[in-house]
């Protein structure tokens, strides 16, 4: 009975251990090594890579990454909830279409989507060209390469992750509850805040986790839409492994970033895990 199961699990085990866990173990090892003179890494063992993180420069980037991720998640929630509500309240024959329309940009390439915004926002982009053509502005507006552009890119990228789980909790909601609330004298706003929103909590929580995690570890969006000025932790990790060639410090940074995500997730699962499932 179990022989087939062992064979079936073997390839997944081999790949996961060999190309996910083993590489992570190497990163853990590197994070305690000293950087060599010409890049590379070796003895002696040290904790210096971790103590360097207390440098205000890196702390600032860490705090900023959190802020950008929190803001992006909040905006996704504010934009995603009403959209999910609209889809859940539309007729059953339309729901599939509305959901597919949310998913369509998500299915197309992330780089194409980021590039689409750069095409709109850059100095010679469509918005600036159009405004200049209309004579509204003489100098191009600095729309790209700032924190706002990064947040816009993240919100655009991850909004579907917020809409889907909220929609699936709202869809299961019994419509008679809304009628009952109305019969008991609640205004539509009161019903929304005191019946619909509390019942959608598991979806809100799941959506927020799904958006926050990739935002915190974002690399591509801050790199392209922030243009090097708006740096997040992911960019510092990449720099250490490429241009700076300080792998031990990059390794320590990667582990701190991963640990932050894990601790946060564990905390949320413990507090709201039952609702998530």
């Amino acid at each position: 009975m179990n022989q087939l199961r062992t064979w079936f699990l073997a390839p997944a085990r081999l790949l996961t251990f060999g190309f996910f866990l083993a590489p992570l173990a190497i990163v853990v090892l590197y994070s305690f090594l000293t950087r060599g003179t010409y890049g590379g890494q070796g003895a002696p063992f040290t904790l210096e890579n971790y103590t360097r993180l207390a440098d205000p420069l890196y702390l600032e980037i860490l705090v900023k990454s959190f802020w950008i991720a929190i803001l992006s998640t909040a905006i996704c929630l504010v934009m995603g909830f009403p959209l999910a509500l609209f889809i859940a309240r539309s007729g059953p024959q339309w729901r599939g279409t509305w959901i597919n329309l949310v998913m369509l940009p998500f299915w197309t390439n992330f780089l194409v989507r980021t590039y689409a915004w750069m095409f709109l926002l850059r100095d010679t982009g469509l918005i600036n060209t159009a405004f200049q053509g209309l004579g509204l502005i003489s100098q191009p507006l600095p729309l790209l390469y700032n924190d706002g552009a990064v947040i816009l890119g993240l919100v655009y990228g991850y909004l579907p992750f917020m809409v889907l789980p909220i929609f699936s909790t709202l869809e299961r909601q019994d419509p008679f509850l809304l009628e009952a609330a109305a019969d008991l004298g609640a205004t539509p706003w009161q019903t929304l805040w005191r019946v619909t929103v509390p019942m959608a909590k598991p979806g809100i929580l799941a959506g927020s986790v799904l958006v926050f995690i990739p935002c915190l570890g974002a690399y591509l969006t801050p790199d392209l839409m922030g243009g090097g000025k708006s740096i997040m932790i992911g960019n510092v990790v990449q720099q250490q492994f490429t241009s700076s060639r300080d792998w031990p410090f990059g390794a320590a940074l990667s582990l701190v970033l991963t640990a932050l995500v894990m601790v946060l997730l564990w905390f949320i699962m413990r507090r709201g895990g039952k609702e998530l499932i």
Partner: protein
Amino acid sequence: MKNRWLAAYAAFAYLFLHVPLLVLTVFSFNASRFTHWEGFSLKWYAVLLEDHRLIEAALNSILIAVAATALATVIGTIAAYGIWKRSAPVLEGSLYTGLVTPEIVTGVSLLALFQGLFHYFNFRLGLHTVILAHVTFSIAYVVIVIQARLKTMDKSLEEAAMDLGATEFGAFRKVTLPVLMPGVIAAALLAFTISFDDYVITSLVSGVDTETLPMVIYTMARKGVSPAVNAMSALIVIGVGALIVAAEKLQQQHT
């Protein structure tokens, strides 16, 4: 009244989601290389056809995505089945950890592994390392999709088949796999999109000679606007859209 506000908001949200890609597509047909409209033209698509770098990158991306999808779908499906038979907490835990680990961290750790291996074995970064990375990170997505499908599956069906003389593998192939098929298609589609989409991990493990489509778009996006990228992007949007519609049709036939 309130529903009308909600509908108005939804219209705005859908515009936000779709206008950027629509504008990009429209301007891929612009005769000018600048951002004002000068008339309809297909010249950027012609430029595209002569751009060997873009074509090679596109072929690489398709090759990688097809290989990684085939491998990850098979490996992930049988792994989900194995976990369904009896739980495998370590494997499951590692798969979920992989899902929430920031991509950049997965990428640099793979780079560290491959660089470490270079000291002992004679091989280089290239298509094979990219495919290996893609298969590894796609398995978790496949497992999740298949697990959702298996939840609705009755375990006694297989037992009945085996009572009637089917082998263990026969029961899997003839009874469980057909039920899982819509899930397998959905999983393959997801794996394909994720592989075709990936830039962060790919750019770290591809080495100097191998370029994928997202890598070319990245370089061009940094350098500035070339309408050829708009044309390429429009083709991706249309191609992926067609793939989704086809898959949806296929899935409707199966269920």
